[in-house]
């Protein structure tokens, strides 16, 4: 009898497994249909790097070389010269080797003025590696394309329809919960 019971248990277990599998047929699959539907990545997602300019087209970057020093993969190389009129430095060359970059966002952490930022554009696959040696024009272009970007100092910023740069609402910000919870607490107090 125990043998029969064993067989019955085995058949039952296989049947349960098969039912478990087949019931998925009636469920909607979570596929996101990538090339046909645009991905909505979270704003802090690190897919590529960009150099943000101010609204008036001036350079945010002060060429302090902090990002170059912070980079673990050593892919940033910058050349600069002293600004003949006024303080600071001007960029001669600002190259990021996006081929060898490990997308750890250490440079973004290091940047004191939130000039170098992370963006969500991941569609960089190419037939030719030379397209990925990013110079300053390419990095600016990446920033101009993107609607939102992230840097630890200024948080998530968004580009509005009319080209202005604004801070994103707290729902998109890391640590935005503090701001979201504040009005509720104030209401409770009042």
């Amino acid at each position, binding site marked *: 009898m125990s043998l029969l019971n064993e067989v019955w248990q085995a058949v039952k277990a296989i049947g349960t497994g098969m039912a478990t599998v087949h019931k998925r047929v009636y469920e909607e699959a979570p*596929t996101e249909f990538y090339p046909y539907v645009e991905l909505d990545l979270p704003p802090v997602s690190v897919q590529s790097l960009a150099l943000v300019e101010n609204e008036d087209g001036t350079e945010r970057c002060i060429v302090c070389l902090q990002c170059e020093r912070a980079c673990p993969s050593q892919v940033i190389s910058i050349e600069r010269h002293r600004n003949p009129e006024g303080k600071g430095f001007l960029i001669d060359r600002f190259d990021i080797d996006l081929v060898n970059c490990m997308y750890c966002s250490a440079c973004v952490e290091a940047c004191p003025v939130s000039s170098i930022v992370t963006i969500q554009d*991941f569609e960089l696959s190419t037939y*030719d590696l030379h397209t990925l040696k990013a110079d300053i024009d390419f990095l600016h272009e990446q920033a101009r394309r993107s609607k939102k970007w992230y840097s630890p100092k200024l948080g998530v910023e968004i580009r509005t329809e009319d080209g202005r740069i604004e801070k994103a609402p707290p729902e998109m910000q890391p640590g935005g919960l503090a701001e979201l919870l504040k009005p509720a607490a104030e209401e409770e107090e009042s």
Partner: protein
Amino acid sequence: MGLLGSDERPRDIILGTLDDLINLARSRSMWPLTFGIACCAIEMMATWDPKVDADRFGMFFRNTPRQADVMIVSGTVNKKLAKRLRRLYDQMAEPKWVISMGACANQGGPFRHGYSVVEGVDKIVPVDVYIPGCPPRPEALLQALLLLRDKISDRELRYKRPQEIATDYDVFAEPGEDGRIPVL
């Protein structure tokens, strides 16, 4: 790399059309080789998961290089692996393509300064599509696979294929005086 084994652009209309048809079929039925190396291999598997599902485009893994069309080099290639990788590539049946996935496979990535890392898999096998990222997200791999699809089926792109870069790479080289296995 046409059906008739010629790299010249076919002038014959009928054969040209047949060539196009076969290449259309090739581009719509790319079977990658099950060859995961490192971090990118996990994202490579994730490209076939329910969320991204590259099987929508008719791609599924074959374990043996004889039946695979695309080799996705998904991770760091070091000098010990390089010989095996080249051998796997040689074992694949023509026509075959290579996708270099991630920073390490492209040019060594963060590990390119190391003593045993090959600085880019294109020193060993000819690469058709490169994906940046460390690791690239699954959608990026899907984009690369679709770029490869366009490259195979599109005449203009196909005949501008970069020639074999790595013909002079000796994968069975003896170590040099400093004990390192020479790369190029």
